C-alpha cells in the first residue's frame, strides 16, 4: 500500500477509513474531519483513535473529575496539581515529593506477570518524568475468590511481576493491599503507586518550548508490542473482537528501565532537559502531541528516525506502539551532544527525532513525506467529552435495606472466640507475608516502615530525618453499599493510616476502578464516588494531586464492586519519631480512641461469618478523623504513645491481634461498661485507632485527649501471651498466629 500522506488525504476525501474498528464513534470521526478540514491520514487516524480512547482522553470521567480541581482545598504545599504526569507536593526543607497511582488491570488478567510488571514500569516513568528520583512503590491488588483456581494463576503471576520489576529497579515496596472478592474473578485490579523525591528546583514539566530545540527519543527500541493496547485493553471489555494482528501484551525490561532512571537523573542533574515526557499508553502519539500541546510552539518529527526492533512496522504502528522503557525529551541544540554522551555512558540508545517549530502544528514525516499535520491540542487535550447518563440502580434500596444488624450474633464467649479465629484466618484478614516477602523493602536504605505497618515510610533526608509516609486504601464492599460514603471511607482510612505512623497527611492520589461507563448504574457509582472523594478532600484539606481512572472492569454484564483506591501522602519532620504498630512493651496501656457504634454493614465479620453484603457502611465524620489524626501525630511527636494501629476492616479485634503478633506480646482486654463485647470486637466504626501508652505518659495523654474532646477509653494492657477478653475468651498467641499466617500459603504455595 502506498503511503497515505496529508496531500494524498486532501485529494481523496472519500477513501473509507477503519475508524469504527479503531474504536471511534461516528460523530468523533466527523469531528476529526472538521478539525482537519479534510479526511485524516491513516497515521492521523491512529493518533486520534488512541488519544481519544477512554483510557487516554477520560471522555466519560472528565466531567466528574473536574470536582477535584473545583473543590480543591487551599493548600500551599501543592506545587504542581492535576494535569501533569503526577502532582508535586512541598514537604519542606526545599524538598518536593511526587506520587501517583495507576491501574494495569486488564493486561494483568491476560498475562499476569508481564501485565503487572509493565504496570510498575509505567508509573515509575511517570514519576521520573517529573524530575524526581523514584524512592518507593506500593501495590493495591484485588483478586477473585481466594480459593478459585484462576486466582492461583493470576495472583502468583501478578505478585512475581510486581516483585520482578520493582526489585530489579531497586525500589523498595513499602505497602499496598490484597483483597479477595468473587466480583473481581474475571477482572482483577492491579494498581501500582510510585513515590519520587526531588528538590523544588528540579521539577520538570512535559512541554516542548523553544523553537529549534531538539526532540530526543531515548530508551528501548520501538517494537510491535502493545499496539492498540490502549484502546482494546483498557477501554473495551474482553469479549470485543478486534483484529489482533500484533500482540497487545508487552514484555517489560526492568534492567533497561533501571538504566533509564539513572541516565535521566544524570541528565536532570546537568541541566540538559527543557521538557520531558514518558512514553506510556498511546506511545509516541501521546508523547509528541502532549509535549507539543503543552508547549508554546509546534513540533516536527521525522518518524523514520525512530529506532525499531521490527523493521516491518508501518508509521501508524510506530505511532501507536506501546513498547516500554522509552522517554522523550526536549533539549536545547547546544546540549544535545552532552545529552547523547550521558545516554551512551548508561548504554541507553538515544536518537534525535525532531524539533520544536515556530508554528502551532504537530507535523510528522515519513521519509520526507508528511503524514501528520494536526493541531496538537485537538489530539492531546481537546478530545471528546461525554455527559454519560447516570442513575441510581434499582437494586440499591433493597441492598441498603438488607441490614447486617439482623444477622445472628455469637451466643457467648466460646462462639465469639471461634468467630475471632475465623476472622483472622480469612483470606482478606490473614497475613499477606507470603506475598510481601517477595518484595524488596530494604533497598535504598531509607525504609523506616513497610508492610505490615499502617503506612510505608521512607526517609528522604539523612541529616534531618525528614520523611514521607504513604498509605493506600479502598473498600469495594463499602462503596457498593454507598459509593459516596465508600469513597470517603477509603480516603478516611488512608488518612488515618498515615497519621497512625505519626506523619501529617498532605495530599491525595486515587485510582478509580469501576465497571462500564455505558451502564447508567455504574456511571452513578462513579459520579457518587467522585463527589464523595472531592467533598472529603476539601474537608480534610488534602487536595487530589493526580490519579487514574480505570473503566470497563467487568465480566460480561457484571461489573466489579465500585472500587475507589485512595493513596494519602504525609510528611514527618523526623522519622525517629515514627509510631510503629507493634505492642512491644508488656505493661503498657491499651487505649481505644474514637467511638464504637453498632456498624456492621459491609463488615469483614458479615462477610466471613455470614457471606453477607447489605445495609449501610459505617458513617463518616471527617472532623473526627482530623481530630484523631492530630492526637496521633502529637502523641508521636511528644513521645506519649509507643504503638498505634488504625481500626478498619475486621474492627478492634483484628487490629489488636495484629499489634500483638507483631510485637510478640499478648493483651488483656476489658469490655468497657455499656458496650456489647461482640460490637466492641467486630464493629467497623470509622475514626478509631488503638494505641499503646507507657504508664508514665498516661496522664499526659488522657489529658490531651480530654482537652481536645477525643473519646479515649482504656480497654486493657499489653501482657502475657494470649489475646484475652476478660469474661469472654482467651486465645493463645501461638494459636492465633497459626490461624493468621497459614491461610495464604495454604491457598497459594
Amino acid at each position, binding site marked *: 500500500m502506498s503511503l497515505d500522506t496529508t496531500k494524498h488525504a486532501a485529494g481523496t476525501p472519500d477513501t473509507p477509513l477503519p475508524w469504527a474498528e479503531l474504536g471511534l464513534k461516528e460523530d468523533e470521526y466527523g469531528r476529526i474531519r472538521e478539525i482537519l478540514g479534510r479526511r485524516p491520514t491513516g497515521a492521523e487516524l491512529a493518533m486520534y483513535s488512541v488519544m481519544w480512547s477512554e483510557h487516554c482522553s477520560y471522555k466519560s470521567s472528565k466531567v466528574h473529575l473536574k470536582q477535584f480541581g473545583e473543590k480543591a482545598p487551599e493548600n500551599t504545599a501543592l506545587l504542581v496539581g492535576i494535569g501533569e504526569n503526577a502532582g508535586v507536593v512541598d514537604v519542606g526543607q526545599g524538598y518536593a515529593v511526587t506520587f501517583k497511582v495507576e491501574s494495569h488491570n486488564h493486561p494483568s488478567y*491476560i*498475562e499476569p506477570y*508481564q501485565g503487572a510488571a509493565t504496570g510498575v514500569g509505567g508509573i515509575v516513568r511517570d514519576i521520573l518524568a517529573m524530575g524526581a528520583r523514584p524512592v518507593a512503590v506500593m501495590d493495591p491488588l484485588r483478586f477473585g475468590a481466594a480459593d478459585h483456581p484462576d486466582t492461583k494463576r493470576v495472583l502468583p503471576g501478578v505478585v512475581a511481576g510486581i516483585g520482578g520489576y520493582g526489585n530489579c529497579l531497586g525500589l523498595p515496596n513499602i505497602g499496598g493491599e490484597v483483597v479477595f472478592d468473587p466480583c473481581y474473578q474475571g477482572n482483577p485490579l492491579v494498581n501500582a503507586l510510585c513515590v519520587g523525591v526531588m528538590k523544588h528546583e528540579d521539577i520538570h514539566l512535559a512541554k516542548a518550548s523553544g523553537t529549534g530545540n531538539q526532540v530526543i527519543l531515548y530508551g*528501548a527500541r520501538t*517494537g*510491535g*508490542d502493545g499496539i492498540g493496547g490502549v484502546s482494546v485493553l483498557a477501554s473495551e471489555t474482553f469479549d470485543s473482537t478486534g483484529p489482533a494482528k*500484533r*500482540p497487545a*501484551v*508487552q*514484555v*517489560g*525490561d526492568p*534492567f*533497561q528501565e533501571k538504566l533509564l532512571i539513572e541516565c535521566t537523573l544524570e541528565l536532570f542533574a546537568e541541566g540538559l532537559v527543557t521538557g520531558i515526557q514518558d512514553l506510556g499508553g498511546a506511545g509516541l502519539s501521546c508523547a509528541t502531541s502532549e509535549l507539543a500541546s503543552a508547549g508554546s510552539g509546534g513540533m516536527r518529527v521525522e518518524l523514520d528516525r525512530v529506532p525499531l*526492533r*521490527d523493521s516491518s512496522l508501518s508509521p501508524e504502528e510506530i505511532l501507536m506502539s506501546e*513498547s*516500554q522503557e522509552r522517554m522523550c525529551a526536549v533539549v536545547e541544540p547546544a546540549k544535545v551532544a552532552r545529552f547523547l554522551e550521558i545516554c551512551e555512558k548508561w*548504554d541507553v540508545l538515544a536518537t534525535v527525532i525532531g524539533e520544536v517549530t515556530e508554528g502551532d502544528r504537530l507535523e510528522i514525516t515519513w521519509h520526507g513525506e508528511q503524514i501528520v499535520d494536526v493541531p496538537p491540542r485537538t489530539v492531546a487535550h481537546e478530545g471528546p467529552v461525554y455527559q454519560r447518563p447516570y442513575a441510581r440502580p434499582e437494586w440499591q434500596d433493597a441492598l441498603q435495606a438488607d441490614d447486617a444488624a439482623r444477622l445472628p450474633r455469637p451466643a457467648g464467649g466460646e462462639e465469639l472466640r471461634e468467630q475471632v479465629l475465623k476472622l483472622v484466618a480469612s483470606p482478606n484478614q490473614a497475613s499477606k507475608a507470603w506475598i510481601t516477602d517477595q518484595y524488596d523493602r530494604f533497598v535504598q536504605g531509607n525504609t523506616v516502615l513497610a508492610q505490615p505497618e499502617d503506612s510505608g515510610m521512607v526517609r528522604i533526608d539523612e541529616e534531618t530525618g525528614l520523611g514521607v509516609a504513604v498509605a493506600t486504601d479502598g473498600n469495594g464492599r463499602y462503596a457498593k453499599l454507598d459509593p459516596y460514603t465508600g469513597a470517603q471511607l477509603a480516603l478516611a482510612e488512608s488518612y488515618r493510616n498515615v497519621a497512625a505512623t505519626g506523619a501529617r497527611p498532605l495530599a491525595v492520589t486515587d485510582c478509580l476502578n469501576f465497571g462500564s461507563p455505558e451502564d447508567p448504574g455504574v456511571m452513578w457509582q462513579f459520579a457518587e464516588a467522585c463527589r464523595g472523594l472531592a467533598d472529603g478532600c476539601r474537608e480534610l484539606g488534602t487536595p487530589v494531586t493526580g490519579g487514574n481512572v480505570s473503566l470497563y472492569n467487568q465480566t460480561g454484564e457484571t461489573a466489579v464492586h465500585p472500587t475507589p483506591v485512595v493513596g494519602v501522602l504525609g510528611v514527618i519532620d523526623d522519622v525517629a519519631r515514627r509510631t510503629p504498630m507493634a505492642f512491644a512493651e508488656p505493661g503498657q496501656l491499651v487505649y481505644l480512641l474514637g467511638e464504637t457504634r453498632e456498624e456492621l454493614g459491609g463488615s469483614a465479620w458479615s462477610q466471613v461469618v455470614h457471606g453477607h453484603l447489605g445495609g449501610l457502611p459505617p458513617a463518616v465524620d471527617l472532623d473526627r478523623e482530623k481530630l484523631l489524626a492530630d492526637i496521633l501525630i502529637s502523641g508521636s511527636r511528644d513521645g506519649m504513645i509507643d504503638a498505634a494501629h488504625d481500626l478498619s476492616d475486621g474492627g478492634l479485634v483484628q487490629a489488636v491481634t495484629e499489634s500483638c503478633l507483631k510485637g510478640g506480646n499478648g493483651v488483656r482486654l476489658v469490655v468497657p461498661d455499656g458496650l456489647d463485647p461482640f460490637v466492641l470486637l467486630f464493629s467497623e466504626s470509622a475514626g478509631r485507632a488503638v494505641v499503646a501508652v507507657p504508664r508514665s505518659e498516661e496522664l499526659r495523654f488522657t489529658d490531651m485527649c480530654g482537652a481536645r474532646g477525643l473519646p479515649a477509653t482504656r480497654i486493657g494492657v499489653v501482657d502475657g501471651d494470649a489475646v484475652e477478653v476478660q469474661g469472654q475468651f482467651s486465645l493463645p498467641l501461638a494459636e492465633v498466629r497459626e490461624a493468621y499466617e497459614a491461610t495464604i500459603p495454604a491457598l497459594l504455595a
Partner: protein
Amino acid sequence: MARVVVDVMLKPEILDPQGQAVQRALPRLGFGGISDVRQGKRFELELDGPADDAALARIHELAETFLANTVIEDFTVRVEETGAAGSPAETVRAVS
C-alpha cells in the same frame, strides 16, 4: 520410556530482554558475527510409556496450556532419541 522435548520461545515480535542482553555482551567478549540472539526455555519430559501419537497430543496440550503462555510465546514439541548413537546433538559434559 521416551524423552520429549518442549522448546518455548518468545514470539518473534515480542521483546526478548534476556536475548538482547546476551547479544549486547558478545562484542565485549570478542565474539562477532552473531546478528541475533533469542533466549527461551527447554523442557525435557521423561515419559513412562512410548511417545506415541496419543502421548504427543497430550504433551502438546500441556505445552499449550501450561508450559507456554501462548499470548507471548510459541512452542515446539519433539521426541528425542535418548541414548541413541548418532544423535545430531553433541552433548558436552563439561569437567569443572
